[in-house]
Every structure is written in C-alpha cells, then in structure tokens.
C-alpha cells in the first residue's frame, strides 16, 4: 500500500466517520447525538471528495448538514423528553431482531465488498476524474437519465403530500 496524502486522508476520515457514528448512537442527549451526526456527514462528504464525486460532496454538505439536520433538530423539539421512560424500548425480542439483522447486513456488505471489489479498481479510470462534477452530471442527467429525473419529481411530490397529510389535523 502506498503511503501518500490520499491514503492518510482516507484513513483519518474513515476513523473519524466510524468514531462519530459510534459517538452518535451512544450519547444520552439527543442534541449531542445530532451534533455528532453532523460531524459524520462532514467526514462522509470528505470521503466523497476523495472518490472524485465533487457534486455529491457539496450536496452532502448543503442538503444533509444544512437541511436534514434542521429536520432532526425539529424532531427532537417535537419529542417529549421529560418522560424518558416512555422512550425506553421495552420489547427485548425487537432488540434481538435488530442486532441479528444488523449483523446480517454487515456480513452481506462485508462479503460483497471483499469478494466483489478486492484486487480490482486499483487505478481510477480517466473518465472517473471528471465524472463527479456538476457539469458532466448534468449532461448525463438530462440525456440518458431523464426518465429517472422525472421520477424523482414524483417522489418529491409524494413526500410533499405525505408531509401535509401527516400533520393535517393541526390545520383546517
């Protein structure tokens, strides 16, 4: 393995990402969980940059760190945190299922990554270097992938209607 700047950056970002994810799920206060989630989003955005996915990296910062985090903080504000007993998970079989499913997912991803990609993709292709910019993304999105693009608008429409319906009792 080469020991260059990119490798150093990758490993420091990866350690920070995993560390902040663990901190996020172990904090007692939901606010500090949310702040560690921001750190996690930031490191993941750094990893996207290392993969030459510039547009996704910027969108990660703008949408996830900016907008989605505001949403999480609003959810924390909507929760009733006085009564911690209500938030405690009572059903242990649910926890057991969650643990088993997590282990299964981890194994699945691990095996796929290890056996699928191991040894391949040592050199990044020339095309990949410019593929992640907003410009080349736009060219692809509005020629070959215009149908998925239109479908995305239906997804957003469904989300708009869903959000309004869920909170409808408060209005009218």
């Amino acid at each position, binding site marked *: 393995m080469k020991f260059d*700047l*990119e490798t150093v*950056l990758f490993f420091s970002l990866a350690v920070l990402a995993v560390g902040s994810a663990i901190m996020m799920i172990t904090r007692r206060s939901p606010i500090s969980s949310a702040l560690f989630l921001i750190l996690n989003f930031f490191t993941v955005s750094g990893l996207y*940059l290392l993969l*030459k996915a510039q*547009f996704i990296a910027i*969108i990660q910062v*703008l*949408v996830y760190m900016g*907008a*989605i985090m*505001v*949403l999480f903080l*609003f*959810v924390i*504000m*909507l*929760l*009733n*945190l*006085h009564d911690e007993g209500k938030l405690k998970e009572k059903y242990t079989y649910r926890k057991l299922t969650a643990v088993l499913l997590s282990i299964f997912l981890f194994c699945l991803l691990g095996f796929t990554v290890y056996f699928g990609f191991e040894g391949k993709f040592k050199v990044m292709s020339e095309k990949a*270097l410019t593929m992640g*910019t*907003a*410009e*080349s*993304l*736009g*060219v692809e*999105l*509005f*020629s070959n992938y*215009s149908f998925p*693009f*239109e479908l*995305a*608008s*239906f997804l*957003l*429409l469904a*989300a*708009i*209607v869903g*959000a*309004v319906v869920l*909170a*409808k009792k*408060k*209005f*009218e």
Partner: protein
Amino acid sequence: MLDSYIPIFIIITISALFAIVNVKLSSLLGPSRPSKEKLSTYESGVEPVGTAHDRFSVKFYMVAVLFILFDIEIVFLYPWAVSFLNLDHIKMMYSFYSVIVFIVILLVGYIYVIKKGALKWD
C-alpha cells in the same frame, strides 16, 4: 488532484480554529466571579417558568420539511444550469422541456400545500 483543495482546507482550518480559539480564550482570559444574581436567567426580569425542553408546534416541522423538499428540487437544477450551454441544440431543448415537466409536477405539490393551508401560521 488534491492540490486544488488546499485553499479549502486552509479556510476550513482557519474558521475552525477561529471559532475554538475565541471561545476558549474568552473563558480563559475573562474574569469569572459568579453570584446568585448573575447566574439567574433574567437578572431583573420575570422568573422563567418550566424548562426550555418544551414540545414545539408541528408547524415548525412542516416548514422545515417543505423547505427541504423544494431545496432538493433546486439541487436537481444545479447540474442543468451548469451544463445547459455545453449541450447541442436538440439536447438543449430536450433538457429544457424535461426540466419544465419536473417543475410543473412539483408545482402541483406547491399548489396542494398552499390550498391545504399547510404554511398558514395561526
């Protein structure tokens, strides 16, 4: 490749250090002589009732959710805006109409939100 990010690294480092150093310096250098009056929430105001951890109205959440959804709509328009002039004429018109369709579909959602009064504040 990574060299082009050095200015960004520098500005992130400086802004992070600026924030941390200022907060730490003010707590290190400033005198700390707390008294009962100083530690009260409003020194000469009404005593606060309850805690700050109250539940908020769902209206705040509605505004945030709808903001994000229309924010994502704009995110899709960034690549279009950047690549539009580099496309040839046919692709240009094609992308133009596909964006029009995209926006019209979301406009339906916007009209629905307005008609339902989801953004009304009372």
